[in-house]
């Protein structure tokens, strides 16, 4: 299995069981393309997921897969890497699985920086359980469990990941394959925990919740695709951009040519700057464009590599008999 594979080679023999039109299909395609593009092998690749519509993902990929329990995929995936760091492990979770019941494990896998590609399918709803609001649902969301509207302010997945000490934080849209695949490749290339939030449309329980920036008609104006080292420009023909409000820790939208603004005034994306990443993650349409792409990437040694180093340092295979006889012993004859 060394001949590189095509995307279709990563499709399992299982019939895909998401609702017709679900954004999950697009993400599945993008992942299969990514696997092919990065030359992954089916036998060395493992998909671990929790529970949810999104977490059905592993059944549809022709690699090794583990559909675990609700919220615990990060812990299971950590165990897989501790057992065999050679494996290339992807983690698929949802906004409920990863941020409601699984928030703590997500925090710790990010802070430990275990080498995983973590894809969080954010549809701002609990799909599999028929549409209750989730921790990413906006205030006032009407759902079976919140008939008069939800009250809690949502958590921002990327802000959370940054606060948790994540070293790679990116964002993409389910149906925009090219940028999604780019982000997934970057995530794969990054050694350590890579966190990717994908805006995923749930056609049944939350249809169109991201239209404000994914709708064809507005996409160009409402999406900012960030590129390291490039000025933060957006809009059709890129007429607009972001700059720092002078003397403040805030960003503002400016139009080139207006009020004497030139490209030089624009903020240049620095994906190694956590503060900038937080600011970008916080931008909300319509006032601001939605920031997509790699918001933050600042690698450090992955956890399991340090673990292996300690194991290696512990030296040669221990002698059990020696161990048992270590310390004070005495003979009875």
């Amino acid at each position: 299995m060394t001949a590189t594979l095509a995307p279709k080679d990563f499709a399992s023999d299982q019939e895909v069981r998401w609702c017709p039109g679900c954004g999950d299909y697009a993400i599945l395609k993008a992942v299969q393309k990514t696997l092919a593009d990065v030359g992954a092998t089916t036998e060395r690749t493992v998909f671990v997921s929790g529970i949810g519509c999104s977490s059905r993902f592993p059944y549809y990929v022709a690699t090794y897969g583990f559909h675990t329990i609700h919220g615990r995929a990060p812990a299971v995936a950590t165990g897989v890497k501790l057992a065999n760091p050679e494996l290339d492990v992807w983690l698929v979770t949802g906004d409920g699985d990863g941020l409601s019941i699984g928030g703590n494990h997500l925090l710790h896998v990010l802070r430990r920086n275990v080498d995983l590609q973590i894809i969080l399918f954010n549809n701002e709803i609990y799909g599999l359980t028929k549409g209750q609001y989730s921790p990413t649902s906006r205030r006032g969301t009407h759902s079976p469990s919140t008939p008069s509207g939800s009250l809690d302010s949502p958590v921002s997945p990327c802000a959370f990941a940054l606060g948790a000490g994540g070293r790679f934080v990116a964002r993409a849209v389910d149906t925009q394959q090219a940028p999604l695949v780019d982000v997934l490749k970057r995530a794969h290339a990054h050694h350590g925990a890579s966190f990717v939030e994908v805006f995923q449309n749930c056609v049944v329980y939350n249809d169109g919740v991201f239209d404000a920036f994914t709708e064809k008609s507005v996409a160009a104006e409402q999406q900012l695709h960030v590129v390291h080292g490039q000025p933060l420009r957006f809009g059709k023909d890129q007429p607009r951009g972001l700059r720092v409000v002078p003397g403040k820790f805030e960003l503002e939208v400016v139009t080139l040519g207006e009020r004497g603004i030139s490209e030089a005034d624009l903020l240049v994306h620095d994906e190694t700057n956590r503060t900038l990443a937080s600011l970008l993650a916080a931008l909300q349409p319509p006032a601001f464009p939605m920031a997509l792409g790699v918001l933050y990437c600042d690698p450090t040694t992955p956890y399991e590599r340090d673990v292996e180093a300690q194991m290696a340092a512990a030296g040669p295979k221990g002698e059990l008999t020696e161990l048992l006889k270590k310390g004070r012993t005495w003979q009875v004859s």
Partner: protein
Amino acid sequence: MATASPPVRQVPREEREQAVIRFAGDSGDGMQITGSQFTLETALAGNDLATFPDYPAEIRAPAGTTFGVSAFQIHFGATDVLTAGDELDVLVAMNPAALAVNLNDVRPGGTVVVDTAAFTERNLAKAGYEKNPLDDGSLASYQVLAVDITRLTGEAVKGFAITSRDAHRCRNMWALGLMLWMYDRERQATIDWLTRKFSGEPEIARANVAALNAGHAFGETAELPNHIGAFTVAPHQSTPGTYRTVSGTEAIAWGLIAGLRAAQLRRMVFASYPITPASGILHTLAGLKSFGVVTFQAEDEIAAICAAIGASYAGALGVTSSSGPGIALKTEGLGLAIATELPLVVIDSQRAGPSTGMPTKTEQSDLFQAVLGRNADAPLPVIAAATPGDCFEVAREAVRLATRYMTPVIVLSDGYLANAAEPWRIPEVASLPDFPVRFRADPQGFHPFLRDPTTLARVWARPGTPGLEHRIGGLERAYDSGHISYDPDNHEQMTRTRAAKIAGIAKDIPLQAVSLGEPAGALAVVGWGSTYGALHQAVKQVRAQGHAVSHIHIRYLAPFPRNLGDLLRRFEHVLVPELNNGQLVQLLRAAYLIPAEGLNQVSGKPFKVSRLVSAIEERLA
């Protein structure tokens, strides 16, 4: 090195078969170390022994308080020693609180050694004494040796360049020296240990050695009141071999490694979250990386068991360990391991509950949880260790069952076993049988739920193996493909298969033996876990009176050995003493419809042999 000069008093030493002594003092007084060193010297003297350390719940409670008292008890003898002992022959009390808390465990006529310097107004008040018990005659029924240990220690270490705080800290060595003299033990192992421990601070090492010797010399030379005896305890006749002292904590850690080796697996992933009294196993294994052990301190117990499951899925041996409340949190994870049929060892070091309960106290009350405490029909094997040394075999056996049957296995230990120590004949590991794991390699006709026809275990297929790519999960799966299935008959078949697989283990374990007595009779005393020693002693004593009583101790609690029912039916009465409110007794009644009767103690303490003896006698009356 003993200080020379003054004429050595030639005390006639009485020969004793056994002795029970307890060191008690403030958390800060180093009683645990004192006890361990006495244990070591006693082991080297060739006695059989059992110890019982008793810590306060507080890390370092305010000095002088009763709840801050830390104690270490050791029972040693020329004959078999199976428990830490009911009554004390000697109590060493470093302060009034220690005396108050421990006095009524001293047998009438027993010896009480106290440091008079600690009996200040303030300390007496803290201990709740209105009057000083040393003067008010309240100790009349004991042999009291009241010595100003503080002063004598001070003098002994005067010469050394150490802080007065460090000097004061040598008191425990002085007391240890005295006790080593009283029972005629060597000091060398302790001297070596002190030298090693304080290799960085040689002065402190020397001071401690001086205190140790001074205490010893005090016994040898001082005009001790005649009622204070000196004793010898002859060596115990044990099976030839190399011995060491071992605690249940060490034995479990080492047993797991032995199991890993026998299974011929390269790596164990031990994932755990600290909790009393289980943490020691994590600490021990954390230092044994060279044996292929990766220890992982997870963010919580759920993450711990899930990481262990992930490790097993990836082809390592996944192990997790906790105590009651933490095991409760692992319940859902256990279900996943059962459903996906992955090997997993789960160690439950039981403690007193419910809820947080009394973390430092022992109990056997997680049996129901281990055997039945899961949602849906979710059977798994449960085995329990009887003694510190037995922990080694039980841990090793757990690895065998987990890997051979592709199932989680729960090992029941408890707070007593975790901390107690006993002499242990080091097994010839080379001679122990291997049980190598065979990972699936052949893609031919592979699916993840292919089963071994005899064990019903599914194949273990490691990620990384070409051609075996497969997906498993918690959803019900088809018997003959492993794919998700909601088919009614399939669920029926899978449920029965999971049950049959575990039940079938009964064919692969030893028949239930009788630990003491005949395989039939008037009364069977049936136990499990750490009560082994107490039950054995009690039955022995009652048998000595000529009664037809037998002791049966069950290691395999699920499934039961296949002869257990028949064996128990051969007794007129079945008495089931447990350190819980009645759990094994219920399982036995349900399984065999025998009128087994419980004898229950839920005090956080081990059984006293005397209590068991009278209970047994009642039943026979």
